[in-house]
């Protein structure tokens, strides 16, 4: 169990770093959504199903969607 958790934490941090490195903002948003998704799995492990649900629905899905809509109306690549 603890190895699964550690692996997920590492993956989440890697996702966060990737979100900060990618020049392509769409990729960065996908990485940030991955962070949210893993966070919601961690919430489930921490016995918080309500929060896991909210994070998956709001944090991962809707936030990523509004980010992508906003990027579509602005510019895709960071200069």
């Amino acid at each position, binding site marked *: 169990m603890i190895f699964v958790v550690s692996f997920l934490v590492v993956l989440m941090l890697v996702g966060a770093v990737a979100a900060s490195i990618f020049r392509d903002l769409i990729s960065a948003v996908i990485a940030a959504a991955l962070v949210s998704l893993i966070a919601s799995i961690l919430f489930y492990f921490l016995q*918080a*199903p*309500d929060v*896991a*649900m*909210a994070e998956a*629905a*709001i944090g991962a*899905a*809707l936030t990523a*969607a*509004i980010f992508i*809509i*906003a990027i579509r*109306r602005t510019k895709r690549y960071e200069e």
Partner: protein
Amino acid sequence: MRRAISIFLLIIVTVGISMSLAKIPFGVPKTKVGRHYINEGVKETGATNIVTSVVVSYRGFDTLGEVTVLFIAAIGLGAILSTVRNKTVKEIEPASLVLYTGCRLLFPLILIFGTYIFIHGHLTPGGGFQGGAIIASGFLLIYLGCRERRISRIASNLAESLGGLIFVVIGLLGLVFGGYFLLNFLPKGTANTLFSAGIIPIIYIAIGFKVGSELASIIDNLIEES
């Protein structure tokens, strides 16, 4: 240079926080308020999901503030983006038939699922926020799949206003009947049945509609072609 300074600052912050974390060990019970909610929650509010009873009843005032925050975001977003709406009807490429039909088939199912989530908020995990977000994602699907469809702005405004008003009015009714704002003045019923927990399901349904319509109108405002 700027990078070095910010890393330095951040390290100070992190070290400071980890110093005080030493007093907050992981996995050890440390709360007195939460313990009270767990022991007395079902008896006092009639909701078997303690998180729901905390969100709607014990800390219901926070929740009122929270739906207000979302309301502000929806209104503010409308105010910020309002002047760009020059109705240039661009030729939108229609979605393929499969996508169109699929979205139209899925949409009612998603709505039912979201409704289920917030009606059962006091029994199972989930509630107004989660259900509302699921409903909003249904609308997102419609925007993406069936591009020419739009929700009626008046209907979404109506849902936002009515949801908020129901919350406040129920709170004020508690004040009238029992002298406390947001008092659970309805009978609690038997725990673990759908019709139990007094005002909690009613408030969660109001929140569900409000959150759903607010998130949908946020998406609607953002997606509007400029």
